[in-house]
């Protein structure tokens, strides 16, 4: 889907823009509404005040309304077309009107009732819209006669409408401006925050094109775990590549000796039995070399990215397999594995290491094989011992010497032990060879847990 292909910054920008627009739009809407409501109520209050002012300045006598002052406190009442108008009516008859309202008729046909008010908008002939407040009063004279009057005060709506429009405009300018500034700020912040990601990408590109070997910059905490892991992976790959290269070179080199021996035999000997014999020997040697180098190249080696594997599971499976294969030997085995014997390592490597050592014990042991796995704070120790003839002291060091190539190893020693000590070396562990109290050999492998 297209949306899955959007870049992180586009996603953020789109999301933030939508949220910002909605937020600013809603605030504009509610601010505008609040302003409108407050101007409306202020206008009504003003009209009411005018009504009370008129009421207060009117003189009522026995004939009802008798006199209104010439000048009212609000000068707009006296200026024609000022936008503020007042008329006092009884029935259809205007009893008084402000100077401003001369020539207008703004009174209502009906009396709203005593002390009642009625708000309405009036459209005048010249399209002027007025807000009119009609206030009903009833004056009772000494004879008990009632006079009904309506006080009408009107104000031109255009004035307030213009005010409202002005506010509306200003509001939109401000909010729009703020929104724009926020969006720009957001874009800049995004650029700045996502810069490390771009850096990682371009660094990776540099690694890809061979300009660099690792991610070197200081990255923010959120990314450092990732970049560290990438670096670990790169290192791991690098060391694996080296190992492949070395294995290949070693293989090619070590194959030359048996090939030379065989060629020499072919050229110098005319005895077919001798040639056959040498051929067999050298083929065996070549086959062993291939096995060994293949195994060396396949060794994963230590990497912190590996999931923990259970040594107990692996050992149990191998022991069951060996019990089957060496059934006729009736080996009595003792196995003691601590429950938390987990190690961050490649499963295949662990199978190879333990498989080779255990097979060695089953092969050379007489009746007994003991396995002990002890977990320490930062290492795991694997003890494997048998009751065979053991390995003579002088040969021990050679067998477990680190990185010692098989083709330079003591004659007669199996491929398995060479592979095992190679794997231990690849995990920066240690392998020791001792005399077991059972009489045979005791291998102690110590592997770092992390």
């Amino acid at each position, binding site marked *: 889907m297209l949306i899955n292909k959007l870049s992180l910054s586009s996603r953020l920008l789109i999301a933030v823009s939508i949220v910002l627009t909605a937020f600013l739009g809603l605030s504009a809407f509610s601010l505008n509404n609040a302003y409108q409501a407050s101007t409306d109520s202020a206008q009504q209050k003003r009209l009411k005040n005018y009504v009370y002012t008129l009421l207060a300045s009117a003189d009522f006598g026995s004939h009802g309304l008798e006199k209104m002052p010439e000048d009212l406190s609000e000068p707009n009442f006296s200026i024609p077309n000022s936008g503020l108008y007042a008329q006092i009516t009884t029935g259809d008859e205007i009893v008084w009107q402000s100077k401003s309202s001369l020539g207008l008729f703004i009174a209502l046909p009906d009396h709203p009732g005593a002390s009642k008010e009625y708000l309405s908008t009036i459209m005048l002939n010249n399209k002027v819209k007025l807000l009119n407040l009609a206030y009903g009063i009833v004056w009772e004279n000494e004879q008990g006669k009632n006079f009904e009057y309506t006080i009408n005060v009107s104000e031109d709506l255009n004035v307030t409408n213009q005010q409202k429009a002005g506010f509306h405009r200003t509001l939109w300018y401000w909010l729009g401006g703020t929104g724009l500034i926020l969006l720009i700020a957001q874009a800049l912040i995004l650029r700045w925050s996502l810069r490390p990601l771009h850096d990682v990408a371009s660094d990776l590109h540099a690694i890809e094109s061979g300009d660099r070997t690792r991610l070197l910059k200081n990255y923010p905490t959120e990314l450092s775990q990732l970049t560290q892991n990438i670096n670990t992976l790169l290192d791991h790959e690098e060391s694996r590549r080296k190992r492949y290269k070395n294995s290949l070179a070693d293989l090619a080199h070590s194959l030359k000796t048996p090939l030379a021996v065989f060629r020499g035999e072919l050229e110098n000997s005319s005895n077919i039995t001798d040639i056959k014999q040498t051929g067999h020997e050298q*083929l*065996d040697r070549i*086959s062993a070399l291939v*096995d060994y180098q293949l*195994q060396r190249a*396949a060794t994963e080696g230590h990497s912190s990215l590996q999931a923990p594997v259970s040594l107990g599971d692996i050992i149990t*499976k*191998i022991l*069951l*397999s060996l019990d*089957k*294969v060496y*059934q*006729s030997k009736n080996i009595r085995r003792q196995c003691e594995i601590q429950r938390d014997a987990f190690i961050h390592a490649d*499963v*295949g490597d662990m*199978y*190879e290491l*333990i*498989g*080779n050592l255990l097979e060695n014990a089953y092969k050379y042991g007489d009746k007994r094989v003991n396995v002990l796995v002890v977990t320490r704070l930062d290492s795991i120790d694997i003890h494997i011992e048998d009751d065979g003839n053991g390995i003579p002291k002088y040969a021990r060091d050679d067998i477990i010497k680190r990185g010692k190539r098989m083709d330079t190893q003591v004659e007669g020693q199996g491929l398995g032990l060479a592979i095992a000590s190679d794997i231990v070396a690849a995990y920066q562990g240690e392998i020791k060879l001792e005399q077991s109290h059972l009489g045979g050999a005791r291998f102690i492998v110590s592997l770092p847990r992390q």
Partner: protein
Amino acid sequence: MRILVIEDETHLREQITQQLQKQNLTVDAAKDGEEGLYFGSEYAYDVAIIDLGLPKLSGIQVIQELRLTGKEFPILILTARGRWQDKVEGLEAGADDYLVKPFHFEELLARINALARRASGWANSTMRCGPITLNPSSQEVTLNESAIELTAYEYRLLHYMMLHAGEVISKTELTDHLYEQDHDRDSNVIEVFIKRLRTKLDPDKTLNAIETLRGRGYRLTLERVN
């Protein structure tokens, strides 16, 4: 003794077959997992040799399927990748032993003989019943410590009867284990072989080595010396 070989590599399959036949063993060879499984389920074998990397059906699957259908003959796995994980997987699936390629034929033969002996309860590499001994590796048969000459089929017959010394073996079982699957079988031939074997093993007719149980088959009566 009848052997099933499942190996997809033609050269190796033919080599193994020929070498085993030279050792007087009855051999059926299958070129892929499906054919191998068919043979394994249809015929009676004493040992099966199964390569792990097979087309159509992997070696592991063949082994699992055979074990699932109750076939109990010993299985030796061949693997080119000597990884322990593969070996353990094969043995867990039901194989009994493994051999990593390339191997010496002697090694293969020794493993096959050991598996067959183990399956029929023999401990030593040379089987001895009363005065008779049979060494499967050298194919030597002795009577009272002196070697006797047997033809190929006589040897096959004696080998199978010694593996199952003390058990009653029907004629069908004997034909099943002595002949390849496409061989023309005639159970009367078995009677002839038995007769000849009796004369060779018991020239003075004092031993009564092979007893006939009418309608049931034959039994090697001599006691196993383990």
